[in-house]
């Protein structure tokens, strides 16, 4: 068993309206970020768990999503192993 950090992204289904995304897009616009064409807001859930392998860890994450973390009626999910990418906040 080793321990993994799963990054789980739960996002509103495409086509489903996303009031929070709309509000943020509006706010970004009024702050002058006019290049923005769309904003969607979901959850980023970081789960530390122990598993026998990466594959097993990912499966565990998917099982959690199906059981609890995502609402099948309104949300999609993505599970990945967390490795910080892009720009880190200082």
């Amino acid at each position, binding site marked *: 068993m080793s321990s993994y950090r799963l990054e789980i992204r739960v996002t509103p289904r495409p086509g*489903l*309206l996303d*009031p*929070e995304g709309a*509000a943020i897009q509006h706010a970004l616009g009024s702050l002058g970020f006019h290049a923005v064409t769309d904003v969607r807001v979901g*959850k980023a859930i970081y789960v530390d768990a122990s598993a026998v392998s990466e594959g097993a860890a990912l499966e565990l994450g998917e099982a959690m999503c199906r059981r*609890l*973390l995502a*609402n099948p*009626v*309104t949300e999609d999910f993505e599970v990945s192993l967390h490795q910080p990418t892009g720009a880190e906040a200082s």
Partner: protein
Amino acid sequence: MTRKCAVVTFPGSNCDYDLYKAVQLVGGEAEFRWHRDTELGNVDAVLLPGGFSYGDYLRAGAIARFSPIMDAVTAFAERGGPVLGICNGFQILCEADLLPGALLRNRTVRFHSHDVYIRAENTDTLFTADLAAGEVLRVPIAHADGQYHADPETLAALEGQGRVAFRYSDRNGEITDAANPNGSVKNIAGILNARGNVLGMMPHPERAVEPVLGSTDGLGIFTSLLRSLAPAGSA
């Protein structure tokens, strides 16, 4: 003759006592059930109160639906027992698949606390029999996640089978967008399951049961429910 209603308290429920008193006010017997209970005992109806079960963390109702008591509630509903979920209770019923669809963040992305008008769309149910067809009720809402959503097929079924119990309307019963506080599809404020024994609604009828509270329009829902529980002839 018992007309006993179980009011389920989840961690974070905060309308459980209001519901308990509303049932008593219309002559019913009310008993609390704790979310860790595994049995409902001998009751005639189950009420899921409003509040913030588990702080509404993750999604409103998402964690509470796994409370031990919910298996008993589901079994009770499947036996045809009447189940009424109000606000957070409605959200829990949707998460538990006892009702279709989901309740999303209000379109304003803000909490809304004020009176609304709702129109009774189907008065031929356990919960609305005492209401006049198309009767308009003035009741408070208090929620941040009340925007009802369902896929087109589900909506068609709800509409086709008369399972939309209440719609947000203006005080004359007109269904307008201005009267829709949260962006719910088709102004839906409350729905029934296919069998008609499970009602979920976002507005709070239990907060409109005494003149001193500014409205008594919520009473009809509780009198209807209790009447439906009474043995034939006795009500």
